[in-house]
């Protein structure tokens, strides 16, 4: 890797939508929750779980209460059907008694028994439905249901705080960690990648904590409870239920396995499609002007057709599960009806038992499917947690020195002494860099891309640590200062015009938070930004939108310059600071800069040689080394690289 590290910030962040192939078909329709693409595999399940536990442990008491509530609520609701069955049995008993009474009476009449016998049968005790008993049962039942609902509510209520607060802590923890990570970490990955760990992965963990954990408890409790109840009604019928159980699990597994290839194919097609769309849309101008629309559309159709072919199959497969599970459960239902009917007819169980059993069968399928899912979900969550922990495990910046030196007054005398540096230890860029910038001097750095110009800034600001040698400011090694104190010395204007989502006023004020209103205006005027700012509909209170696209690139640059001016640093760093403004505006800014740079040590990196001609010292860099140095005249006299570069501007005139 060359010095490019500093040259490409922000590359990943504005990738825009369609970030990953996964974004497009998220849910995948009904039953989609049951079948996702291949589940992500965690590398070290045990280790990750072990690290997750402490987060839960600190909320131990609440969790235990939640567990107890979950089980209690489940138990209460499971007893329901059994009681209901009793009520129905009682009804049936009443019914059968009445039937018997009528049967006897009819029998007496039909067989022409003596009147006394008929009268006896008629006046026999007419069996009453025991509605009082049934009423008591139903009251009990209603009470249980209310209790169960209440407990389940309290459980979810308690859990909502627990899970969210855990995630809150984790997010803060990861943010603090990010603050301590060296820039090396940021330069090595896209922003999207880091972002996804703090948001998507965290969300994943939160959802699992909130839903899956309690679901797991209630599901397992339900399965066990229902099994017990079913067994108490009829072991034989329970057997039927247990036979249908593996059937549905097997079927789900088979479908999942078979549909996997469609899902993989679908993800691939989606990825390709998103990629093509993204590329063709962002390159719209080129597509149009090179008459490439037809090819582009043809290619799109091809991917789109492929997506359809594989997509509907995946969709259909996932759509199969619901009907199939339904069928299996209906099968169980039918067999229970038949077998129950036979058993009732033989008086070995009661009618109400059949009703209860049917209800148990119905409540059986859901928790089983859920438990099967939870395994998948947990795996994904652990993978997420693993990625979060990965960030937390990254090596941090070198800790601050124990006895930091603070400079009371900064003269701005900067020295590089035998500096050795490489972005990785096996790829050394700078071998022995020696530079001296005297107080008040302007040092310009020129050279081709990758020469290490931006690296100099990275080292000066201590974004990266040197591998050897030292950098001194006013004779103090910069590693002997606190980073904050060191950076206070410098003011920086970069090619990358970072502004945040807020008012223009606040963005300029960012340079010096304690600055007064007038100082902000002053800085804006010095940067020649005041005029355009006042021309904006909201003036200084105009809110820059997320991409700050409501002002031009050049205007953004003016704001960053104003920000630097406001911070009033002892040493200035200008890294291609005016590359985005047109040259007439640049002249204006240059004047402002000249005032700013007057009697201040400044480092200037520039493309346009005209802007650095007046520098006290020009360093020509190539591949991490300084190949020429001197002022403009000296370098022109040498007739080397710099002179060559300079003269090439006018090659055709000559």
């Amino acid at each position: 890797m060359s010095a490019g590290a500093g040259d490409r910030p922000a590359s990943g962040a504005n990738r825009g939508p369609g970030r990953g192939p996964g974004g497009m078909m998220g849910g995948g329709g009904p039953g989609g929750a049951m079948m996702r693409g291949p589940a992500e595999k965690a590398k070290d399940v045990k280790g990750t779980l072990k690290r997750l536990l402490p987060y839960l442990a600190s909320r131990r008491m609440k969790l235990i209460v939640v567990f107890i509530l979950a089980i209690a609520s489940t138990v209460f609701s499971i007893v329901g059907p059994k009681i209901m069955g009793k009520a129905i049995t009682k009804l049936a008993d009443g019914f059968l008694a009445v039937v018997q009474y009528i049967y006897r009476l009819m029998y007496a009449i039909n067989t022409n028994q003596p009147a006394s016998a008929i009268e006896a049968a008629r006046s026999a005790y007419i069996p009453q439905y025991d509605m009082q008993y049934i009423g008591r049962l139903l009251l009990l039942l209603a009470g249980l249901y209310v209790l169960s609902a209440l407990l389940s509510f309290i459980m979810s209520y308690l859990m909502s705080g627990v899970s969210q607060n855990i995630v809150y802590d984790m997010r803060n923890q990861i943010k603090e960690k990010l603050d301590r990570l060296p820039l090396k970490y940021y330069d090595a990955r896209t922003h999207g990648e880091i972002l996804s760990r703090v948001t998507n992965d965290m969300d994943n963990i939160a959802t699992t904590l909130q839903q899956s954990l309690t679901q797991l408890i209630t599901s397992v409790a339900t399965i066990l409870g229902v099994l017990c109840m079913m067994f108490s009604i009829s072991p034989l019928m329970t057997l039927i239920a247990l036979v249908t159980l593996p059937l549905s699990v097997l079927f789900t597994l088979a479908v999942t396995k078979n549909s996997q290839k469609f899902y993989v194919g679908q993800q691939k097609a989606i990825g390709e499609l998103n990629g093509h769309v993204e590329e063709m849309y962002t390159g719209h101008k080129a597509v149009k002007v090179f008459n490439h629309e037809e090819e582009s559309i043809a290619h799109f159709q091809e991917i789109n057709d492929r997506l359809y072919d594989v997509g509907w199959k995946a969709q259909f497969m996932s759509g199969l599960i619901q009907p199939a599970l339904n069928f299996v459960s209906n099968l169980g239902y039918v067999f229970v009806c038949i077998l129950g009917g036979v058993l009732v007819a033989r008086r070995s169980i009661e009618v109400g038992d059949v009703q209860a059993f049917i209800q148990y069968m119905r409540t059986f399928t859901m928790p089983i499917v859920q438990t099967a899912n939870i395994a998948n979900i947990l795996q994904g969550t652990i993978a997420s947690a693993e990625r979060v922990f990965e960030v937390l495990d990254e090596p941090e910046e070198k800790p601050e020195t124990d006895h930091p030196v603070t400079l009371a007054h900064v003269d701005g005398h900067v020295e590089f002494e035998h500096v050795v540096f490489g972005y990785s230890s096996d790829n050394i860029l700078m071998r022995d860099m020696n530079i001296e910038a005297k107080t008040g001097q302007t040092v310009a750095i020129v050279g081709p891309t990758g020469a290490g110009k931006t690296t100099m800034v990275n080292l000066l600001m201590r974004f990266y640590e040197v591998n050897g040698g030292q950098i001194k400011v006013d004779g103090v090694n910069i590693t002997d200062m606190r980073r904050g104190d060191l950076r206070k010395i410098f003011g920086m204007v970069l090619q990358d015009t970072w502004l945040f989502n807020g008012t223009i006023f606040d963005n300029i004020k960012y340079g010096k938070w304690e600055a007064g209103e007038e100082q902000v205006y002053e800085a804006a005027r010095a940067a020649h930004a005041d005029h355009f700012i006042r021309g904006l509909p909201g003036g200084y209170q105009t809110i820059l939108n997320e991409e700050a696209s409501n002002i031009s690139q050049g205007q953004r640059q003016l704001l960053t310059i104003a920000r630097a001016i406001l911070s009033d640093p002892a040493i200035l760093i200008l890294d291609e600071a005016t590359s985005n403004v047109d040259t007439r505006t640049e002249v204006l800014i240059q004047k402002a800069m000249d005032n700013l740079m007057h009697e201040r040590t400044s480092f200037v990196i520039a493309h346009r040689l005209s802007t650095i001609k007046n520098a006290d010292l020009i360093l020509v860099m190539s591949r991490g080394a300084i190949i020429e140095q001197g002022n403009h005249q000296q370098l022109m006299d040498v007739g080397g690289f710099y002179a060559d570069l300079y003269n090439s501007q006018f090659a055709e005139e000559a």
Partner: protein
Amino acid sequence: MIKIMRYLKPYLFLVLLGVVVLFGQAAADLNLPNLMSDIVNQGMLQGDMPVIYRTGVKMLVMAFAGAVCSIVASFFAARLALGFGRDVRSAVFSKVEAYSLYEYEKIGAASLITRTTNDITQIQTVLVMGFRFILYSPIMCVGGIVMSLSKDKHLAMILLVSLPTLLVIMVGLASMVVPAFTTMQKKIDQLNLTLRESLTGIRVIRAFNRMDHEKERFTQANRDLTNVAIRVNKMMASLMPIMTLIMNGTTVAIIWFGGLRVSRMQMQIGDMMAFSQYAMQIMFSVLMVAVMFVMIPRAQASAVRVNEVLDMKTEVADPAEPQTPPQQSALVEFRGVSFAYPGAERPVLREISFVSAAGETTAIIGGTGSGKSTLAGLIPRFYDATEGEVLVDGVNVKDMAQKSLRAKIGFVPQGAILFSGTVNKNIRFGKKDASEEEIERAARTAQAYDFVSQMPDGFETEIAQGGTNLSGGQKQRLSIARAIVRNPEIYIFDDSFSALDFKTDAALRAALKKEIENATVIIVAQRISSIMDADRILVLDEGRLVGAGTHLELLQTCEVYREICVSQLSEEELA
């Protein structure tokens, strides 16, 4: 939402078939409790075994038929939803490819991408669900009500109480939860924004020592999100228990009142049991429809966005009878051209006139926002002039077919747009049937040959999406080679030398000179040195032509030009 459903037309037959099949499924599902009540009433209580077996077999057949119907339905659903998605996606993509730059910029690339991918998928997903729930649930709901009425009209009164209760509570909860979800989404966005800013601005934040400030912002956003999320979760916590309670309450009520009716010999026990199952089926259907009502607004928003793309009128259209210029004379002419974006207060260009003939180089210079790029974009009809005429080879560009017009042009865009694929493929983008020699030659002229051949696989090196594995200057040179290989009549360089160092810039221009003898060259530039030797320099200031002529002429006559020169060149260079 309804508007976009026109794309369902080809699948109307599938929809109808689907409805039929869903009816079948509903009939099967609704008949099962009915048969069960037969088993209870006639079988169990009467001890009639054959009835139990006979009815049991009927139930089996019914369950199987239901399963088949439901599988067929999901087949239809998959075919039609994905087919619909494919068709809409295709329509949207083709439409966008036909967009002029005006429509394109109006919506923006990022938004167009979302609309073509995520938004359509969103609608497609709702369609799959919809087929199942929107169509099936009402069938079940109505069927269930009919069945339960047929079992016992009086008992059905219970539903009159429990269904409205269910609905009222659901609507009440939804009216609380849905806005809360919206707030939560906003808080999530806020957190993401804060985080993304602290990532993109990491250097600035550290340089200005604002880490604590950023952390505070993050913690605040995090706290906000957590609070809202907890609030939402707390509301959601009541949802399931309440629903379960209503269902269970209904069952209890059915058994109590049903029991009373049974005790008065007005109803049979089996019917009561069947009734309670119908009640469950009805309530579940209602719940499902409610879930759909939560889904639909999201799809609705997507549909609106997709429709906007489809309904957008393309400002730049081919004429009914396109003209072809009599000869290829490489002539570009502007006659009193003005351009304003629709609705804009001030025009971007005002009354521009000039002629650039074969072998001539016309340069356009001016400050940011002076309208340089817009002017160049009028030639390939990225936009159409609001007033005046742009002529190529003597014909108004509006009277030409866009394709044949653009075939004459080699355009090098400002941002150096490259595509994923090999270097070779990227240069070939300019001319599909270019030979290897032509590609190499173009690369040499564009000063790209050296660095390309130094890359691991030379011309077969893969370029990452957006050309991220190349430097800005390298990208620009490839993008120039792509235009050169076309060997066009008209070259347009839209600020295409900015990322080149002076040396490469000069070498490139020297090499180019030989290639373009018979072509017209339009160069948009910021650097004086890139255009000093042009035959004609147009100086733009806020959309007006404030000077035209050669470098030396303009130095004498044009104040703005002189200012630009002074800003870039030293005294001795000016002399």
